[in-house]
């Protein structure tokens, strides 16, 4: 395998099993697969939490893979998150971005809710009123999300004018250079047509496109566990969860050369994964600058 192919793609939308009852692989398994496939950069984007971010980052560093810290945030347009929800992928570009990521995750999990019952409900079902996102955009790269992202779902529903409004809002909040329209192709019926429409929208608004894998497991065979997790999460059976489960086994971590072939029509989308990986230089294992306090010790003793 040529080194050109090895470094040609970075996976920027990936769920570990810390995406509770959705991701079906441990960080160790994903990173081992990434190493075998020749990845140089890998993002973690679990749903509404950073539980696995540190272990992911440490394991990546041990495997000589650049770890990128991110989240897939659940948003709602209304203040109480009662309406329809959508997803947005956010990646920390720098330390300020990581701080904002932490704040957004905390808010999505109900940190600022005074009522105990409301806070507990939000903790079990995280969601952020979208207006709170505007206050914490600095230092973040915004990928417009999976099929459940606002831009993608409006585009697929042929509501292109509304999709454009949504996309321009992200551009206003994050900046032109930090917004990428996310294209996904997991061999799901409609992926190709949606990607063409999204690419046209990106051109119109003047933002770049980016390819992601919407990874939910490290190996194809693990799709079975992912199906089971979805059924459990929705308190139903495998038979009854047909509309809720993913339609196929193509949400695994793919070889970079396969992504290149999958997105032949959109070479920029693949190339931009490396642009974003380079921009997201924040290293969770090194850049927080934690220093342990030095306790006073009697003469002749050490802190240990």
């Amino acid at each position: 395998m040529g080194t050109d192919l090895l470094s040609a793609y970075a996976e920027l939308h990936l769920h570990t099993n810390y995406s509770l009852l959705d991701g079906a692989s441990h960080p160790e398994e994903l990173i081992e697969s990434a190493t075998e496939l020749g990845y140089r950069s890998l993002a973690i984007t679990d749903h509404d939490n950073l539980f696995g971010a540190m272990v992911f980052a440490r394991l990546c560093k041990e495997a000589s893979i650049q770890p990128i810290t991110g989240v897939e945030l659940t948003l709602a347009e209304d203040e109480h998150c009662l309406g329809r929800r959508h997803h947005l992928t956010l990646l920390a570009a720098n330390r300020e971005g990581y701080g904002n990521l932490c704040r957004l995750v905390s808010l999505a999990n109900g940190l600022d809710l005074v009522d105990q019952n409301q806070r507990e409900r939000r903790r079990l079902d995280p969601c952020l009123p979208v207006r709170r996102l505007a206050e914490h955009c600095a230092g973040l790269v915004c990928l417009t999300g999976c099929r459940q992202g606002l831009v993608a779902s409006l585009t697929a529903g042929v509501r292109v004018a509304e999709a454009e409004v949504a996309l321009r809002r992200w551009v206003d909040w994050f900046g032109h250079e930090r917004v990428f329209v996310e294209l996904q192709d997991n061999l799901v019926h409609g992926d190709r047509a949606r990607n063409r429409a999204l690419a046209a929208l990106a051109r119109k608004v003047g933002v770049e496109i980016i390819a992601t894998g919407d990874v939910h497991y490290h190996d194809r065979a693990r799709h079975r566990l992912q199906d089971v997790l979805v059924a459990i999460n929705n308190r139903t059976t495998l038979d009854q969860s047909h509309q809720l489960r993913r339609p196929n086994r193509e949400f695994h971590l793919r070889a970079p050369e396969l992504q290149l072939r999958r997105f032949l029509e959109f070479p920029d989308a693949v190339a931009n994964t490396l642009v974003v990986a380079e921009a997201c230089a924040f290293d969770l294992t090194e850049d927080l600058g934690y220093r342990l306090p030095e306790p006073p010790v009697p003469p002749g003793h050490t802190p240990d």
Partner: protein
Amino acid sequence: MESSPRAKVGSHRIRPLNTPVPVQLRVDAGVPTAVLQRAGWRRVDLVEEVWRVDDGWWRPSQVARTYFRLALEGGHMITLYHDDIEGTWWVQTY
């Protein structure tokens, strides 16, 4: 005795909608390049879309299919799939 009204219209020959029908193809690297229809072989001009369905792995009759939406010479569109378990090809309206 009056004959069944269904016999007049030949409804016993009506096939339920969307039932897959076996099809003969020429294939290159897993992708159809020509389809045998009543009028003969028709070349595949364009693979418009490819998608996969994997379902029911917990049942004896699981589904593992790769679908192709094809534009044939002459402009006719067709949807067919490869049954990955049986190794067979079928035409199916999708």
